[in-house]
């Protein structure tokens, strides 16, 4: 029973990071039917940004998290604008290959700039372990769990309650029809990328905190995993990915 709860806690904290990643995947897929292979690499960018600001500018965890979200959001929008927008009306397989190209670019670009070795993620939060009925929970796990829950809640609110969220849902059902009723397609898609990438950035900082180690190829495996999770959970639907 104890090991079960221990596993549950470990699984939940790691799983919530993956869920954040899968959410971005799903949103982008839902809205432009593109399997965004580069999504995992945005998460890698987030981790590196966190590493950089904590080490050089001595940001605290929250500040690092928020700045990584902003930076990754901007990256997502720029990538969409440069690489995916020109291909909006081409065959989907072309956009897929472009996404793979972007993924290669980010991975190898980072490897070129920073070297491909794994490096230690700074410990901004001092690890404290709590013992609850034989189950060990670290404050890092708690922090991750709480942060991702808050982020998911915010995301849910944005999608369900705001005008932009409504536009996103409309575009995912039928983008031509959405455009006809006055939804600004480009702005909506940019916003989706910003939102999804921000989530990935947050996930990146948190995984750095969790594993203490980051490298330029770290986005590849979770990228593919999240892709599978997103498809199996019903790609395009937000609760499915969770």
């Amino acid at each position, binding site marked *: 029973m104890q090991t079960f709860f221990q596993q549950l806690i470990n699984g939940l904290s790691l799983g919530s990071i993956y869920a954040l990643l899968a959410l971005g995947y799903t949103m982008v897929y839902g809205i432009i039917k593109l*399997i965004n292979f580069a999504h995992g690499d945005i998460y890698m960018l987030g981790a590196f940004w966190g590493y950089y600001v904590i080490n050089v500018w001595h940001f605290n965890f929250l500040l690092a998290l928020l700045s990584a979200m902003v930076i990754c959001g901007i990256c997502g929008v720029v990538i969409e604008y*440069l*690489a995916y927008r*020109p*291909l909006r009306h*081409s*065959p*989907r*397989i*072309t*956009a*897929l*290959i*472009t996404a*793979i*190209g*972007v*993924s*290669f*670019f980010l*991975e*190898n*670009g980072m*490897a*070129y700039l920073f070297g*491909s070795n794994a490096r230690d993620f700074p410990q901004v939060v001092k690890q404290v372990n709590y013992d609850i009925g034989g189950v060990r929970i670290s404050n890092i796990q708690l922090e991750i769990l709480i942060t991702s829950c808050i982020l998911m809640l915010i995301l849910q609110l944005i999608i369900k309650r705001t005008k932009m969220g409504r536009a996103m849902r409309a575009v995912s059902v039928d983008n031509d029809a959405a455009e006809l009723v006055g939804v600004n397609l480009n702005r909506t898609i940019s916003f989706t990328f910003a939102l999804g990438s921000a989530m990935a950035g947050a996930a990146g900082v948190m995984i750095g905190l969790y594993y203490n180690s980051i490298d330029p190829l770290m986005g590849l495996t979770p990228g*593919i995993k999240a*892709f*599978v999770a997103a*498809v*199996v959970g019903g*790609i395009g639907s937000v609760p499915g990915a969770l």
Partner: protein
Amino acid sequence: MIVLKANFKYNVCWLIIMIAGFYIMNTLIMIGVIDSFIENMFVTIWINIILATGLNLIIGFAGQFSLGHAGFMAIGAYVTAIVTQKAASLGGFYASFVIGVIVAVIAALLVGIPTLRLRGDYLAIATMGAAEIIRIIINNMKITNGPAGMFNIPQFATWPIVYIMMCVTTIIIVNFINSRGGRVIKSVREDEIAAEAMGINTTKWKLAAFVLGAATAAIAGSLHASYLQTIAPNDFGIMESISILIIVVLGGVGSVTGTFLAAVVLGVLDTVLQDFGTLRMVIYAVALILIMVFKPSGLLGTWELSIRRLFNRIKRRSV
């Protein structure tokens, strides 16, 4: 017999081109223009052509999005490795081709029958999963030497054999595309419901294209194993499938000529960039993105080189 006579001329032309290619290569090696480094590049390009032409048949002509091509390649590679290590003779090498193709066909049937019902991205995931399963099985078997892979595989696949096999598989696939079967699989790609209403068993034909593609992938795998002499399960992962897919899409989905061109362009690019180290993949990625953004249908779209059209143009000009 009108069609036969007219085609005889074109077929002879293609044969001459193939033989000429062989002799040019042969001469260049003899006079030392092509060293073993460049020869290696050519062989890699040819093996990629076999793989990508087969995948183009599945994706471009039959319209089924498969991401598991490397799995069938792995089957061919491992069968050849195992058989030629046991029976190190040219006969054993050729036998390993046949066995590899048979195993790959059986695997393709097992994978294809349940998955080809799926569409688009779901099919891609399913085939990707199937290729992963093949890789994991190889990873855990004793006869394949597990994750370490196999070394010292006898080298029977010299460049002439790879060249000839490339010509043969291309002829088979192109001739299949330009026959009853090719028309049928294209109709399935265009509109499955309409094809069904024409009396076409769509499942059967999708499977046929899938199996044929898998068989050629197995041949490419056999050549790969025998030429490089070293293989490991990780050579046949998802990244290998993706790199074959890149060749297909870059050349133009539905153009065999495009596949040839893209395989050559990427192969040469890869070799030229060899000196750049890490920057190599960055340049490669930028090139890929730029080509896709400015030429979304691939380098050649669906255009095919046709000797017949060439002849007709010359005739018209001389009149």
